[in-house]
C-alpha cells in the first residue's frame, strides 16, 4: 500500500442504483468513505437505508454501479477477503442455536483465522475486549438466547467490534438501547473512527445523534434522490423538514443545536 493511503477512500461506490420491489430508491449514488469519516444515513421509514447498507456490503443485489473496497471491485472479491475489511451490524440478529455470548463475539474473528485454524489466545482477548466495550463482559458465559433484546443487540455489535474491519456499516446500532447505552456505544464507535482511523456508515433514526457522531450525512428521499455533504451544512431545520416531510425546528443553546418536531398546530 502507498504511504498516503489515508486520502484514498476505503469504501467507494460509483453510480450505485438500488431498488426495493422494482421501485428505485437510490439512484446513481457516488460515495467515498475514507479513514476518519463517520457518515450518517438519514431518511424516513422505508426509504432504503437498510437496502443501501446491504448493497454496500455486497450481500444484496444492486441494479447498477460498482462498490469497491480498497480500490478493488467487491463483486470480484471472495467473501472472506471482504469480511476482513468490511463488517456490518444488521438490523435483526436471531440466534438459531445456543452459544455463549463469548462464542458469538468470537465468531467475529472468523474471517481472520485460517480455514483449518483455531482461535488463538489473541482472538479470545479481542472478543472479550469487544464484550467489555458493549458492557457485556459480565455475561460472557451466558447463553445468547437468554439475553434481553437490548443485550442481544449489544452482543451483535460486539461481534462486529471483534471482527474489527476498516469499514463498519451499522444499521440502527442504537435500536433497543436506553439513552446511556446509546451514547456509550456511539462514543466507542467514534473512538474507533478517530483514534484508529477506521470509518463507518451508520443508518440512524435520531437526527440529534447524527449531529454528534457523524462527520458527513447522506439523506435519502426514497424516490432515488439523495443529498450528501458535511454534517454542519446538511443538518438544518429547512433540509430536515423537507426530508421528513414535517416541520422540524432547530433549538440551540451554547453547547449544541437540537432538532425537534414542531408538534400540534402546524400540521392539522
Amino acid at each position, binding site marked *: 500500500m502507498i504511504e498516503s493511503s489515508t486520502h484514498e477512500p476505503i469504501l467507494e461506490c460509483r453510480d450505485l442504483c438500488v431498488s426495493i420491489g422494482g421501485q428505485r430508491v437510490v439512484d446513481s449514488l457516488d460515495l467515498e468513505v475514507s479513514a476518519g469519516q463517520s457518515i450518517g444515513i438519514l431518511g424516513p421509514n422505508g426509504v432504503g437505508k437498510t437496502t443501501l447498507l446491504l448493497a454496500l456490503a455486497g450481500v444484496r443485489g444492486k441494479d447498477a454501479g460498482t462498490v469497491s473496497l480498497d480500490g478493488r471491485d467487491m463483486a470480484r472479491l471472495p*467473501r472472506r477477503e471482504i469480511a476482513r475489511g468490511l463488517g456490518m451490524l444488521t438490523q435483526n*440478529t436471531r440466534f438459531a*442455536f445456543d452459544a455463549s455470548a463469548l*462464542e458469538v463475539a468470537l465468531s467475529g474473528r472468523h*474471517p481472520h483465522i485460517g480455514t483449518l485454524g483455531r482461535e488463538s489466545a489473541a482472538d479470545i482477548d479481542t472478543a472479550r475486549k469487544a464484550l467489555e466495550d458493549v458492557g457485556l463482559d459480565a455475561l460472557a458465559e451466558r447463553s445468547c438466547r437468554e439475553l434481553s433484546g437490548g443485550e442481544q443487540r449489544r452482543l451483535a455489535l460486539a461481534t462486529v467490534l471483534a471482527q474489527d474491519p476498516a469499514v463498519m456499516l451499522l444499521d440502527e446500532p442504537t435500536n433497543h438501547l436506553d439513552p446511556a447505552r446509546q451514547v456509550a456505544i456511539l462514543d466507542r464507535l467514534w473512538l474507533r473512527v478517530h483514534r484508529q482511523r477506521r470509518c463507518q456508515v451508520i443508518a440512524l433514526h435520531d437526527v440529534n445523534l447524527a449531529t454528534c457522531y457523524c462527520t458527513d450525512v447522506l439523506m435519502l428521499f426514497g424516490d432515488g434522490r439523495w443529498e450528501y455533504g458535511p454534517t454542519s451544512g446538511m443538518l438544518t431545520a429547512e433540509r430536515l423538514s423537507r426530508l421528513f416531510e414535517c416541520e422540524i425546528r432547530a433549538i440551540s443553546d451554547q453547547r449544541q443545536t437540537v432538532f425537534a418536531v414542531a408538534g400540534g398546530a402546524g400540521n392539522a
Partner: protein
Amino acid sequence: MTGKSALPVLSVLVAVLFGSLALALALGNGSFGWPDSAVDWQIVLEIRLPRALAALATGSLLALAGTLMQVLLRNPLADPYVLGVSGGAAAFSLAGMLLALAILPIELLAFAGALVSSVIVFVLGQGSGPWSTARMLLTGVVVAAGWGALISLMLALGDDQSLRGMLFWLMGDLSYARISGWWLPGVAAITVLLMLRARSLNILAAGETQAALLGEDPRRRYTEIYVVASALTALAVSIAGTVGFVGLIVPHLMRLVVGADHRRLLPAAALFGGAFLVLADTLARNLFSPRQLPVGVLTALIGVPLFLLLLNRTGNRK
C-alpha cells in the same frame, strides 16, 4: 471453543459406544451371556458383530446428516427421514433394483434419490417468501409421504416375498445388514473432515446474511452441505433402509451435552449416533424375542414425541 475441552465428554461417549457394542454382542434371544461354545462364538462373530457394526455406521451417518441439515434449516427439527431425503434414497434404490439397474451400485442410486429429494424440499420449501420452518417441514413431510406411497406401489407390483422388503424400505431394518469393516474408518474419516470445517458450519448456522458478512459464501456452502448430507443419508439408507429420527434425536441430545459448537457437536453426534442405534437395535432384537422388531419402529417411538416437543418449543418462542 473457548478453552473448554471436549475430551472428557468425548471419552465418555467412546466408552458408551464400546459398552453398547459389548451389550449388542452379549445379548441375544432374550438372554445375556458370555459365549462358551463354538456355536455361540459363531453367532457372536458372524451374526451379532456384523449387525452391530452396521448399526454403528448407520447411526453415525444419520446423526451427521441430521446435524448438517439442521444447519441448512437453522432448526433442530430437520432430519433426513422427516424431510423425505431417506425416502427419496429408498425409492430410487428400490426402483433401480426393480428395473434391474443392478449394474449401478445401490449407494449411487440412493444418492441420486436423496439429492432429488433434498432439492425438492429445500428449493420448494424455501419458496420466495420469508423464511418459514413450517413450510419447509410441511414440504418435507409431504414429500416423505409421496416416497412412501411410491415404495409401497413398487413393492405391491413386485414379487410377493416383499414383506421383509417393506419393513426395510419403509421403517428401516438391520436384520440382514452386512457391511465391510472398511465402513468404520470411512465414517471416522468423514467425521474428521467435517470437523475441519466445523467453524464454517457455526457461522452458517447464524443465517445466510450473517454468514456472508463473516466471510463465508453461503450459496456455495449450502450446496456443499446439501450434497454431503444427501450422500451420508444415501449411505445409511443403503445399509439399513429408512431408519427414522436418529438425525433428530442424537444432535438434539448432544447439543444439550456439548453445546452447539460443531467442533464438539459433530464428533459427539457421530459417536452417540452409533451407540444409540446399536442400543436401539439390540433392544429391538431382544424386547419381544424370538420376534425381532425392525429398529426403525423403536427410533420412531422415541423420535416422534421428541419431535412434537421440539416443535412446540420452537413455536412458543416466536
